[in-house]
């Protein structure tokens, strides 16, 4: 336990916690709204696209983050433009991001042939993240951007949830559905680019989907499930970072995702138990229980 007490004396761990907390909060909030809007696949596409952006920046010799943010936001807005009411079709998303991945392979090849040394490690960092090496400046920047995403989401949360639950009624009531769709995908893109720095572009989806799925299972009311999803994501990052610190063999990205997945499994099991006990408590004769699920 003494290892736990001295944990925060390490600068790299303080930085990892700082960046991880806000990135996770943003990912959890965005994730719940993605689940509500049935747009998880869009996040999947954006996370994979972020890797092409990172390699573009590396190949051109720019800061990694320039490539990350530019690509994800551009692709996010492009996908929003391709769909009805800023909600793109799954097949269009799939086709577009398969091609962007192909571009990523090209850029990886260009980068590898141009700079012969240390390339393998760079690609693994982009794909799977390395939060323990994030550094002070990048940690502060990541935390600030994460906080900004959370604040913006908090401002648009009410109309966005309305538009997500019933698009047509919201549009009739004067909610700018299309504009919200664009804005939300832009925020998702920023969150994805952020999370790439912590868990890597291939693993973002877990941090976005698992806490959100767990929150949606546990609570039906979107206004309660949204903060719960953010809290579960932060919990996953804290627990994951602690585990990775105590067991050095485990990479932090893996530990974070393992905790998040564990939370979702626990939520599924409690949901099932609760449904069973409810069914038992009902009077005989009413054998059909209406499925009560949020969203």
């Amino acid at each position: 336990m003494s290892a736990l007490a001295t944990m925060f004396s390490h600068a790299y761990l303080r930085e990892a916690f700082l960046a991880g907390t806000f990135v996770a909060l943003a990912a959890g909030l965005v994730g719940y709204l993605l689940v509500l809007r049935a747009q998880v696949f869009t996040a999947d596409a954006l996370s994979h696209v972020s890797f092409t952006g990172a390699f573009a920046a590396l190949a051109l010799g720019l800061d990694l983050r320039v490539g990350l943010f530019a690509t994800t936001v551009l692709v996010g807005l492009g996908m929003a433009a391709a769909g009805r009411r800023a909600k793109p079709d799954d097949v269009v998303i799939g086709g577009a991001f398969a091609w962007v991945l192909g571009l990523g392979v090209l850029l990886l090849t260009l980068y590898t042939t141009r700079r012969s040394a240390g390339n393998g490690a760079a690609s693994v960092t982009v794909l799977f993240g390395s939060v323990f090496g994030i550094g002070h400046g990048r940690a502060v920047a990541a935390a600030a951007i994460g906080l900004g995403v959370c604040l913006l989401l908090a401002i648009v949360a009410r109309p966005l949830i309305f538009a997500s639950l019933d698009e047509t009624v919201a549009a009739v009531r004067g909610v700018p559905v299309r504009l919200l769709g664009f804005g939300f995908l832009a925020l998702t893109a920023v969150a994805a680019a952020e999370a790439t720095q912590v868990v890597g572009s291939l693993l973002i989806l877990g941090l976005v989907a698992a806490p959100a799925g767990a929150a949606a299972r546990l609570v039906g009311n979107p206004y309660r499930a949204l903060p719960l999803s953010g809290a579960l994501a932060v919990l996953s990052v804290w627990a994951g970072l602690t585990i990775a610190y105590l067991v050095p063999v485990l990479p932090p990205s893996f530990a974070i995702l393992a905790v998040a997945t564990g939370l979702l499994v626990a939520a599924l099991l409690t949901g099932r138990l609760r449904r069973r006990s409810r069914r038992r408590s009902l009077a005989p004769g009413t054998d059909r229980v209406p499925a009560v699920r949020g969203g």
Partner: protein
Amino acid sequence: MDDVRFSVDLVADVVQMWSQPFMVNAFRAGTIVAVLSALTGWLVVLRRQTFVAHTLSAVGFPGAAGATLLGAGALTGYFGFCLAAAVVIALLGGRGAGRHGHESALVGTVQGFLLACGFLFVALYKGFLNGTSALLFGSFLGITGGQVTVLAVLAVLVLALLAVAGRPLLFASTDAETARVAGVPVRALDLGFLLVLGATVAAVASITGALLVFALLVLPAATAHRITARPARGLALSVLFGLVAVWSALTATYYSPYPLGFWLTSIAFAGFVTAAGGRAGLDRRHRGGRLVTVFPRDGLPGSRRTAP
């Protein structure tokens, strides 16, 4: 083309290319893979299961990494993980997998967690870091005759399964409710199709790498769907586009310094954009004459269906 070997005489080019045994094997494997993924992919697009397809294809990476860590062949890993993930997704999500909010969260978690496992395997097997990009992006240069045989056997199996279950599967994919009433075992077909998809993805991933299977699976099929909705023509077109994409990508890779993944996705995507643009133009011209009402396929997003 900066490479001097490519000439205007296409026949001579092909003869020259096929004088290399590895290119012959690459073309054989590529042909099998193109046919297999075009047929399965057509059904994926019809069933709107692109997210599940992408998840299954991504899952090949941890499979191969884990198998390498344990010393088993990469192919074992591809098949083990892809089929296991297919079963998990089928049990958790059922037919709605990947399409509705809750189920898509489950599918996304399966993908994220298994990719994280892949990273763990790579981290545990230290010397393996440089092989990572080969697993993710594939290498078509080292395909052996044995691999081609395995692929061919597998392709025949999958095609036979699809041929046997084709009619009910098509029925269940277009209208699940009616099919269920008519006595079609929809749930069994869902699981069966996911298993076939898992096997296809595993086979294709062993050649193209885990991240690029998806392009081969979705792009030719989506192009065909833009051109025709009729099953027989659509399947034939999908196979044709797949073959054209793979053959021209292999040729382009042979004569240029750029990787196969780039050529394959770019050629297939160019086809898709052309077809989608053509379709949009046609639709616009037709809309002038008659009134067209477009209903969303699954009802409005977020709208609740009343329980039966």
